[in-house]
């Protein structure tokens, strides 16, 4: 019974943890502008996430090593250093976007300007890293994130044309009046939002934090295989909820407030409150996770003591890295750069950098010396290779599309 509870909890946290400010912004933006014609991008990215999330969990459980330990051991100091730099920079941008996102949510709830909230949120993120136990972090925020199911409920209550939603989703085509490069640009932003690098680093390091061993591998696998697709349902329902309300006038979603309009229409004030709780939980958790993942990756590269399972005084360098990341990201948001713009730039850059995080994982999951009999099966390698090809195509296509569409205008 307790086992079943633990698994349900794991799955539910995976659902909540999958969605962050990048998913919320890109899903609602594309839903309002392109309907469900880009749903395929979310499905594709989730499939890749399941494949590689399962690998990350397995590597952490079997080899008892986290991401950057193995990256450095297997791929050499130089490659690992480039990788570390790129990942840390991206996670820092992600962290900034999430901090801005939480501040926007608080602005909508309280009416107080978001810039006043930015330092408060930064402090909150750091305090969570400093004091809150790892499991509380995952469970509390993951469960609260489930409030976002209101988007699915709203969809039922709104005058939704299910037939055409479904038709658009399974027959993707560029909507009239839109250019192909723009459409592809937003497809890439959706993929980048689902496959942010911090998730894999956090997932594999989290496995070590919770002292996973081979016998926890089943749970980890179930969390990845069931949790992520259910998280995808959340993303898709946000996208779909925009269609009946904002699509008819192809509203350009540039503010978080616009995203809540379908909810208000369907469910009123109660729905709004649930939405804000869900947004807050998901985005705040993502902020904490991206800050932690910077600390994790740097400490793992240099062989320092890391993790929330130690007291801060036992892992001082790890905590210094986390603290400075939070300060840097908060400072960046205080320059009054628009959080939504930062979010879009971040997900697009993330799309370009996907192979950097995922290739090493594939290499390690095939290493018999680390993985013993738990190395990748042939079919997993087949799928993973196809996925990697997709990632490389995405990453090569990103810069030209970014310029051709002037960032999706």
């Amino acid at each position, binding site marked *: 019974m307790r086992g079943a509870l633990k698994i349900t909890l794991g799955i539910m946290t995976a659902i909540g943890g999958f969605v962050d400010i990048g998913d919320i912004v890109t899903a609602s933006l594309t839903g309002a502008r392109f309907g469900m014609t880009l749903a395929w991008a979310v499905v594709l990215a989730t499939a890749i996430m399941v494949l590689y999330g399962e690998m990350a969990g397995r590597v952490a459980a079997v*080899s008892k*090593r986290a991401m950057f*330990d193995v990256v*450095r*051991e297997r791929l*050499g*100091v*130089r490659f690992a*250093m480039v990788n570390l730099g790129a990942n840390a920079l991206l996670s820092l941008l992600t962290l900034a976007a999430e901090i801005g996102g939480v501040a926007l949510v608080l602005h909508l709830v309280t009416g107080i300007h978001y810039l006043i909230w930015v330092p408060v949120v930064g402090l909150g993120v750091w305090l969570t890293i*400093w*004091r809150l136990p790892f499991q509380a972090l995952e469970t509390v925020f993951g469960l609260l994130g489930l409030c976002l199911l209101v988007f699915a409920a709203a969809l039922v209550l709104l005058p939704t044309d299910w037939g055409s939603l479904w038709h658009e989703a399974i027959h993707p085509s560029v909507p009239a009046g839109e250019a192909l490069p723009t459409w592809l640009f937003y497809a890439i932003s959706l993929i980048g939002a689902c496959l942010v690098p911090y998730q894999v680093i956090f997932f594999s390091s989290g496995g070590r934090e919770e002292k996973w061993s081979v016998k926890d591998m089943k749970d980890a696998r179930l969390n990845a295989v069931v949790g992520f697709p259910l998280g995808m349902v959340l993303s898709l329902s946000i996208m779909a909820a925009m269609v009946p309300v904002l699509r008819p006038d192809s509203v350009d979603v540039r503010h978080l407030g616009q995203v809540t309009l379908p909810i208000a229409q369907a469910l009123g004030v109660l729905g709004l409150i649930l939405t804000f709780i869900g947004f807050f939980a998901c985005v705040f958790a993502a902020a904490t996770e991206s800050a932690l993942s910077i600390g994790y990756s740097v400490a793992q*590269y*240099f*062989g*320092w*003591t*890391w993790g929330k399972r130690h*007291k*801060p*005084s*036992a892992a*001082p*360098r790890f*905590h*210094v890295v986390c*603290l400075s990341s939070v300060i840097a990201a908060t400072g960046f948001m205080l320059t009054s750069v628009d959080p939504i713009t930062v979010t879009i730039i971040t997900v697009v850059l993330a799309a370009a950098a996907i192979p950097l995080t995922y290739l090493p994982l594939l290499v390690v999951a095939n290493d018999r*010396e*680390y993985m013993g009999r738990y190395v990748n099966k042939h079919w997993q390698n087949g799928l993973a290779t196809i996925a990697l090809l997709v990632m490389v195509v995405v990453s090569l296509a990103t810069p030209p599309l970014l310029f051709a569409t002037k960032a999706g205008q």
Partner: protein
Amino acid sequence: MPQGIVTANDMLWDRQIYDRDGVEVGKVDDIEVTIPDDGGAPTLTALLCGPTALGPRLGGRFGAWWTAIGQRLRPGDELYPVRVTADMIVTFDRHEVRLNVTAAELPTNRLRAWTRQYIIGRIPGSR
């Protein structure tokens, strides 16, 4: 190189070093191999740790820069990296190196001790 031959570099580079109590000491950034005076087989005399060992391996301008920073951080601007001598090693395998001393006794501990004393230790709730 003929197949089946494993170099000391392959065996040791970038492995995690733990002290007697399982506390992380750092990574094997490089190794020190000495050829005895009598001309016998070269032997491993120490593991080298820290930026001045890692910098040359990173190579290029970035590596030189890394080494320079590391040098400034060492007492007396010493260029030669921190040595973990061979007699401290208890076991090593493909994953890790275990020592018979505690991290506190080693000179690799300086940054850790400094950040603990001056930054982390001063924030309430660090213990």
